[in-house]
């Protein structure tokens, strides 16, 4: 995602979540969001069947 796309998400989400971020925090939030969405893309790319369900009680 581009910085502009990430900034658009941040601009939309901050008020939706009731958060206030100072301008000086923006670069770090954007960097962290970029990493998070890269991780998300990796996870979303894995094909799971519709029947796949998380364990309701997780016991290793």
């Amino acid at each position, binding site marked *: 995602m581009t910085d502009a796309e990430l900034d658009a998400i941040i601009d939309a989400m901050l008020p939706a979540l009731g958060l*206030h971020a100072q301008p000086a925090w923006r670069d770090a939030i954007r960097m962290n969001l970029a990493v998070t969405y890269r991780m998300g893309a990796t996870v979303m790319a894995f094909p799971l069947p519709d029947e796949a369900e998380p364990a309701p009680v997780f016991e290793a």
Partner: protein
Amino acid sequence: MTVRAAIEATLTNIAAKDRVLNAFTDVTAERALARADAVDAGKVTGPLAGMPFAVKNLFDVKGLPTRAGSAINRERPPAQRDSVLIERLENAGAILVGALNMGEYAYDFTGENLHDGPSRNPHDIARMTGGSSGGSGGAVGGGLVPLALGSDTNGSIRVPSSLCGLFGLKPTFGRLPRTGSFPFVSSLDHLGPLTRSVADLAAAYDAMQGHDPADPFCANRPAEPTAALLNQGIDGLRIVRAGGYFRTMQMPEATAAVDRICAALGVAAEVEIPEAARARAAAYLITTAEGAALHLRRLRERPADFDPDVRDRLIAGTMVPAGMVIQAQKFRRWFQDAMAHLFQTVDAIIAPATPCSAPLIGQKTFVLDGVELPVRPNMGIFTQPISFIGLPVVAVPAAGPMPIGVQIIAPAWREDIALRIARHLEATGAAVAQTTKDFP
């Protein structure tokens, strides 16, 4: 020597050395001496009688606010009760001497803390202890206490064990109750011990086992003691080395450490853990989303009171789409099944604990496979896929110029296997907690 005299000596040692190591945030001297008198009087007995210990400051200690490494939590009222694991250790005779420094709200792999200052590595005080149980690593590595408790959501017991040259046990998810500890990620939080010997590790672990319904993730299983099994050796165990993902993204000392441990165990076979990178990514997502949800109110009301490194990660974590987190949880089930399948043909897997030995305090980046990466989230690249599905791991110290650890990963509920292998490595001299010149 009386237990009181031993505890007085421990307190004197802490007072002298912790000015440098900065492992402790609270010393509970009065309480410890009272407890020592009870042991001396025969009112408290048990396998850990007289053993001093300390806990990461996210454990409730009666009479102290549970700060969890934060400035914000210092405003909490003092805890009314000890955490269940402290109660169990003290019922076995151990003596709490204090609470330990940690990364803010456990979202950390460095052992640095903006509010309390960094815990310092006893092997080189210019270097990190590793986090987030940094004070736990420093206190045991520096010889201040023989036993500390830490928490491990993505590697926070195993990383400081590695960097401080210690044995650390992250038990199976659901084995030890988390009741009376400040949470981070309820899907992934584990508690466990760090020590300088496998016998102490097993004794402490055994004393803490048992169901507690107050932790809804604690499995209702009977205790399965391990201390008597430690010296059974490794004959018959099918041990392999993790390849693929676990052969990448590491500095030479990490590879050499695994080489040494595998050589000591006679391990030549290698397996690839399927989808390890994706498992790490899924653990990352669940962590940031659940952690952010936990702290959302504080992020709204007082964001300036957080450590900025933690706050800005958490704010990003509030913006994870629900579908990603749910997919990560579904993938967790898939990965759990895949690893259970793998463990049908092996009994233990050897893998690096950290990609390198301790970085310098304040170091923000390092280079792995030619790519400059931030230290804080990447010290856990080898621990994170394993705790993601709750497998038990013992981190063992593999000697080097600076300490670095290796993970012994066992099937679910088979802590005994990992401990037996660790004990074999200790007995043969391949994995020994290193002493330091300045903190012997």
